[in-house]
């Protein structure tokens, strides 16, 4: 049990009171009133929070006792972490706000407890959504539920009902309702034009939404009979009141299968001013015409261009080697055929024909067609004209990829970057979305570097090829097997002799061919920091050339990336060779073009490349780092911070089944590498000039 005065001394120390004149007496007195275990807990957390920011730590000390009184420890912990995340993301003022508004955090927590959280359920909900027919829709968070016809926006937490299951169901039903809006053509009705003529557009829209919701619910009922039962139950839970008589009559009309959104619009036109809009249920969302219009206009243009270019590509593919005109000189014509399909909302399926013959279409094209049909109801005839030579600009229909260099020319932002977390050892927790990682490509230099290297090490290259060839997958004949392709004559003769002697005969009389498969995928992660300038860079590049020669011989799958950074905002991975790229002139040029860049932040590179490795289907996955020193970057990624983050990233990689290994030329490496890679997973090469000789050999030993 600590006294108030000893607590005050401890807090003074942590919060550097000497320089800041904070009054620690008040928090110390309140903490002194806690149980000893809680005292230790709070002081420990004050220290962790203060490592991020002293003022934040002080505020934590002031509010911790109150927090423990109204929340359990898990919640207090997530409150502190949330404040630190807010600090990382938005700065001190919003973080202090989180500390001060403890009550609202506690309320939100409770809400999350009975509620359903979109972030947690996203995987399931997205799977459900993609199972439904029509366009591939996306999910995103927003304050209200609505759709722009490409994305369904949902609130981050659903807590209208009393338990998580019902709230999850509410998500599901909301998704179905918004999906129905896109699938059953709510936005195909000329709404915008109509609204312009109305003197009370909001009221009109409300009425249309109410009519449309009734129509859509009938559509859902026909398509998903199980869901409609769940919707009915939800409505009761949400306090459904009986439908007024005048609405019942409309309901009967709107539930007919042949009713379209245009009919609902006409009905709204007839009844506007005479009928008050029926308030929508929360799951029916709102109609955001502005969002829809922008999205649809952009998509129509894009998909038309994409479809016409696709037709052209298909035409070229099919007619490869043939003339596009037949004997009469007429050009081949695309056309469409509509096949009745009562199951689909449009009532038909569309087939694309080339000269009257049906064409097999790849899945992406099928998806494109269904997306166009969802918008327009059919494929218009002018879509069937393949794109001409001038209309081939991919920028028309492809989503623009951010150029990693361009992002940096203007103000800094994280657009288009992969965000990775980073381990803060003082906080004992991750900093979320901390490193902005971008993949760039090394600019190839086409000189004769590779040839020179091969010449210089010609003896070694021959030797390596021989060794690696011997390691290739080979069928070996296993002898004395109990089952196999052929009789093992030696074993049989022995066995017969044994039986003559009266001994028991062995049953291992066969030979079998056995293939040992290597099935290895390896990534080489090459240090491109400024410190590699000169000899080290030369040695790294030479090592890579020899390594590629060896790996091509043995046939293992491999990729090469360089890494460099300057602060967390600018973490760069330089692509030299992807897994599926052949070892060609381009790759050779890139190896030759490796240039020293900035600093050595390692955590992000390990995390990103682990992700790349995990997508590869291989029995053994290896991540080999070629480095010249300890982790280090311009911001506070120095000393223990950098080492602990790197260590954490390596632990994560190992947990994913990746074998990390490090080859370094840093003679100080024995001080920190065992802590990072373990005692056996690194090699220290004393002499830079020996690196090219050693690397292939190390790889051989590692995978033999």
């Amino acid at each position: 049990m600590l006294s108030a005065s000893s607590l005050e001394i401890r807090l003074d120390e942590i919060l550097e009171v000497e320089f800041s004149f904070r009054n620690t007496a008040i928090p110390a007195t309140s903490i002194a009133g806690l149980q000893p275990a809680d005292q230790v807990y709070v002081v420990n957390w004050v220290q962790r929070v203060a490592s991020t920011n002293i003022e934040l730590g002080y505020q934590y000390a002031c509010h911790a006792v109150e927090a423990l009184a109204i929340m359990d420890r898990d919640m207090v912990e997530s409150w502190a972490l949330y404040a630190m995340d807010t600090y990382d993301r938005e700065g001190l003022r919003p973080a202090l706000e989180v500390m001060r508004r403890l009550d609202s955090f506690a309320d939100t927590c409770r809400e999350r407890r009975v509620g359903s959280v979109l972030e947690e359920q996203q995987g399931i909900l997205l799977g459900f959504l993609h199972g439904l027919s029509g366009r591939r829709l996306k999910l995103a968070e927003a304050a209200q539920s609505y759709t722009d016809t490409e994305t369904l926006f949902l609130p981050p937490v659903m807590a209208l009902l009393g338990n998580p299951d019902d709230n999850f169901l509410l998500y599901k039903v909301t998704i179905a309702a918004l999906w129905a809006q896109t699938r059953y053509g709510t936005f195909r009705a000329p709404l915008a034009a109509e609204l312009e003529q109305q003197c009370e557009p909001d009221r009109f829209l409300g009425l249309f939404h109410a009519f449309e919701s009734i129509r859509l619910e009938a559509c859902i009922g026909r398509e998903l009979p199980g869901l409609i039962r769940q919707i009915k139950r939800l409505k009761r839970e949400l306090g459904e009141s009986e439908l007024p008589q005048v609405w019942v009559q409309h309901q009967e009309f709107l539930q007919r299968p042949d009713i379209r959104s245009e009919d609902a619009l006409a009905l709204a036109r007839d009844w506007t001013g005479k009928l008050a809009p029926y308030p929508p249920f929360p799951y029916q969302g709102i109609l955001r015409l502005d969002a829809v219009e922008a999205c649809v206009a952009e998509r129509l243009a894009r998909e038309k261009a994409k479809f016409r270019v696709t037709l052209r590509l298909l035409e070229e593919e099919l007619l490869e080697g043939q003339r596009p005109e037949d004997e009469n000189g007429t050009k081949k014509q695309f056309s469409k055929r509509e096949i009745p399909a009562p199951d689909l909302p449009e009532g038909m399926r569309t087939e694309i024909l080339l000269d009257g013959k049906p064409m097999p279409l790849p899945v992406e094209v099928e998806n494109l067609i269904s997306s166009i049909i969802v918008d327009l109801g059919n494929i218009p005839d002018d879509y069937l004209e393949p794109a001409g030579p001038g209309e081939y600009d991919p920028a028309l229909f492809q989503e623009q990829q951010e150029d990693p260099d361009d992002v940096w020319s203007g103000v800094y932002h994280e657009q288009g970057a992969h965000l990775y977390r980073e381990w803060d050892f003082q906080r004992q927790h991750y900093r979320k979305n901390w490193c902005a990682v971008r993949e760039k490509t090394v600019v190839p230099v086409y000189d004769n570097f590779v040839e020179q290297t091969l010449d210089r090490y010609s003896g070694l290259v021959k030797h390596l090829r021989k060794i690696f060839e011997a390691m290739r997958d080979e069928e070996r004949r296993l002898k004395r097997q109990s089952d196999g392709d052929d009789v093992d004559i030696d074993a049989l003769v022995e066995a017969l002799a044994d039986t003559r002697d009266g001994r028991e005969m062995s049953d291992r009389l066969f030979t079998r061919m056995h293939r040992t498969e290597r099935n290895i995928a390896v990534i080489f992660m090459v240090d491109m920091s400024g410190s590699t300038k000169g000899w080290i860079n030369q040695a790294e590049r030479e090592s890579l050339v020899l390594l590629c020669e060896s790996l091509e011989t043995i046939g293992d799958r491999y990729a090469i990336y360089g890494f460099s950074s300057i602060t967390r905002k600018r973490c760069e991975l330089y692509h030299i060779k992807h897994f599926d790229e052949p070892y060609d002139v381009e790759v050779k040029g890139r190896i030759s073009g490796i240039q020293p860049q900035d600093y050595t932040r390692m955590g992000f590179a390990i995390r990103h490349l682990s992700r790349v490795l995990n997508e590869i289907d291989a029995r053994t996955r290896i991540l080999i780092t070629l480095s010249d020193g300890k982790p280090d970057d311009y911001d506070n990624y120095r000393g223990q911070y950098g080492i602990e983050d790197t260590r954490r990233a390596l632990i994560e990689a190992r947990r994913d089944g990746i074998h990390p290994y490090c080859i370094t030329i840093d003679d100080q490496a024995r001080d920190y590498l065992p802590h990072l890679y373990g005692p056996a997973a690194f090699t220290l090469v004393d002499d830079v000039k020996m690196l090219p000789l050693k690397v292939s050999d190390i790889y051989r030993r590692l995978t033999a």
Partner: protein
Amino acid sequence: MQPRVLKLDEYWVEREPYYQPTGDEIEIFQAGYRNHLPLLLKGPTGCGKTRFMEYMAWRLKRPLITVSCHDDLTASDLVGRYLVKGGETTWVDGPLTQAVRAGGICYLDEIVEARKDTMVVIHPLADDRRVLPIEKLGALIEAPSEFCLSISYNPGYQSVLKDLKQSTRQRFVALEFDYPDSELEKSIVSRESGVDAETAGLLVKFAVMTRNLKGSGLEEGASTRLLVHAGKLIASGVNPVSACRGAVAQALTDDPEMLAAVNELSSSLF
């Protein structure tokens, strides 16, 4: 009771198997058979390739020898090998040799799964030579005109490493199978499992939903076979949502999120 034990080359399909043609596959197969051409059946799992073979064996009145290939299947597993019996070695025919001798239909299921050396064995049988060389016996067996070789292959999910080589695929007449269109699939499910037309319709709708998920979480959508399984469970009184969970969702994936998503889809239908 005593189960019936048959030799491989004595397996005659006695009763007409239920098979609904989806195109002109029966005519093509018959024409190929008459002209001594080997056949390649392409298509996703559970869409009726094996059932089609049984049907054709019944129609052509030939014994059917099916070999399910796996990654340890070697050429001698197909052709035959010497075994040691009482101090002597005796030759034992493999299923392919038995099929050639009996003039039956040999169906190699999922051929790409087998080891590469098996392809070499079937090559001489699959062109106009129609012989099976047996190296270890020093003999060539000429296939009688009734013999037919057919293989199946699922281009969907095997890795690129296991793609069918051009030298193999260009010897075969290919028949493409896909899931039947929804009306036909409905009648198949209803007929095979005994559920009513409405339930069969919902099952087919459910299958289409899972096929929409192919590539975004599922490797393959629900096959007609799985629908028949689910239908059988429903017909014997199991709650449809549970039947879909057991017979379809669990068969498709182990990923808990995907399972939950597929179950949400089935509970939306039934």
